[in-house]
């Protein structure tokens, strides 16, 4: 309709801007509508541990504290800082003395690999960011550690899985709502300039 209204021409400066805005708004709207139909299904299928988007950073901080507390209690390092930082006591603390070598191996894995991953150290391709790679790492870790630590290792693996899902949710959310960063401001501008155009068209 608008193309017919303009005679398939962009016209002068104001009408050109209006036409460009209209094209962008319509295109971004169609793109957004397609995403709104597609992305929720992807989110449901791939992110079982979905949480409120605005709470993701808060939840991740809690997961980090959980992991710190779990390592502290498992290795018996006495470092309860993580447990104190945790908002809630999500872990069952069982103080079982571990062999020193096993405790060192678990601590080393946590400090060097898992904690940076949970802290989101900025590495584009962290080994634990890939589900397959993470599974192999934790299988290898279990072979190094005594059986009584396997429950703790399983908990750490679950935390990594949740971290991956929250990262995935963040990416999907950006796709799902990012187009609005373009669509809404330009829609307002389009409405405003459209009113000016109507006024001036009546005048001239």
């Amino acid at each position, binding site marked *: 309709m608008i193309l017919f209204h303009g005679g398939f021409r962009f016209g*002068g400066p104001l009408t050109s801007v209006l036409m460009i805005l209209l094209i962008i708004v319509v295109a971004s709207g169609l793109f957004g509508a397609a995403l709104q139909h597609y992305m929720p299904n992807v989110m449901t299928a791939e992110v079982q541990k979905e949480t409120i988007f*605005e709470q993701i950073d*808060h939840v991740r901080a809690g997961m980090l504290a959980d992991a710190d507390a779990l390592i502290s209690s498992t290795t018996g390092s006495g470092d309860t800082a993580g447990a104190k930082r945790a908002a809630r*006591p999500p872990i069952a603390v069982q103080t079982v003395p571990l062999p020193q070598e096993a405790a060192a191996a678990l601590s080393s894995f946590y400090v060097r690999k898992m904690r940076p991953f949970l802290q989101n150290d900025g590495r584009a391709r962290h080994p634990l960011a890939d589900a397959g790679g993470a599974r192999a790492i934790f299988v290898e870790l279990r072979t190094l550690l005594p059986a009584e630590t396997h429950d703790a290792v399983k908990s750490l693996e679950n935390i990594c899985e949740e971290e991956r899902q929250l990262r995935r949710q963040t990416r999907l959310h950006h796709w799902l709502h990012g187009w609005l960063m373009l669509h809404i401001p330009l829609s307002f501008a389009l409405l405003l300039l459209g009113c000016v155009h109507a006024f001036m068209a009546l005048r001239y």
Partner: protein
Amino acid sequence: MRRAKLTTKKLAQRIDLNYFKRSHPLRRWRFILSVSVPALTLIWLGWFAITRNNRVYSSGKMSASHAVFTGSCSSCHVKAAGVFSSKTSDAACETCHDGPIHQANQVFAPNCATCHREHRGSLRLAATSDGSCTQCHADLHATGTATHYARNIDGFNSSHPEFAAVRAGSVDPGTIKFNHRVHLKNNLAGPSGPAQLACGDCHRPPASNQPERFGSQQPKPASVAPEREPPSLNPERAYMAPVSYAQHCIGCHGLQFDKRFAESAPHDTPAAVNAFLAMRFRQYIFTHPAEVRITDSDPNLPQRPLPISPRVLTPEQWVTERVAESEQLLWRKTCMQCHVISFPASQPLPVVAKSNITVRWFQHALFNHDKHRLVKCEECHPAARTSQETSDILLPGIKTCERCHHSGSQAAEARCFECHTYHDWRKEKPAQGNLILGQNQARSSEKAGLNSTAE
């Protein structure tokens, strides 16, 4: 040593219940952009308002001829008292242009802007749409009388009638006896040996600067010197000039009148020729007085009475006889080769019929030979090589034009304006210019502003 199972309750406990009180960056930026982008557009429009420049509201680029008024909306958009809008009016156009009426009996006259659409870029405003013409000519009516023009024309390629000049029964009204076929033969007797004529040897526009192969070699008048203006602007390149004896024929068709003289008789009226002959023979006998004694005569003269030999004449008698002989040669043979000549008994000199050479065949349409100069002549005038009669019409018909001018994508322009003009420019009144240079922009600055009282 196992992390507690994440029940729904535990998951809920992980949520900060005050999260909605803090703005997430995504929402915050969305809000900032939603405010700042419209604000930027207002600043953009505000800048034009501050600088009193209304060009931003133009609906498109002005045509090349009106580009100087781009910033001066009020030159054309005139605001009437008490009216909100400032539409263009015919009066604004007629300030600079006179738009002569198309036809005295036309049913209605459209507004200027109906056909000449501005703000569409560097287009020719005269390049109007066919709809502007066919709104009347598709079902033509006239006020108070019946039209004698074709009544249902809705396009050049659909219902345009055959050109009047080439319709059945039309003949060339010219009286000059000319045989195209003979003149286009090989090995014609030219002024300096065998010659082959080409179309351009006789048919040339007035502004042509090429030397005449078989005409007089005198330079052309300065008024048609081609270097005065570019070819595209030179109207004297549009139509072929009528063939003239002095420019195209004299090289081969000399007007010899007596073996005593190498020069030709003038290509003029019989009276002028008669006077010229008498003058030249008087001059001759004055310098050759012995020739008044005639001992023989020229056997080549037709219808010459047998001489009485020898005779002695007075100079005036001798001149009278020689003039009579020369006129016999000219009137009865040389001139008659091309002209229709009659010999009224009541007049001493013959009467030469007017040549009636048609200068412009299409009286209601425009044509430009110069624009078609790349096309071979025979493509449009195929009968020229075989025509033997003066009365033959050698013009192309509409089918010839439609070979190039049709509505296809790879075709020459076929809209009405290509050949026709709407306004009868013979009735144009001179414009009374009132634009003062330098005031246009000033007037624009004063009047184009949104809050100007002038608008």
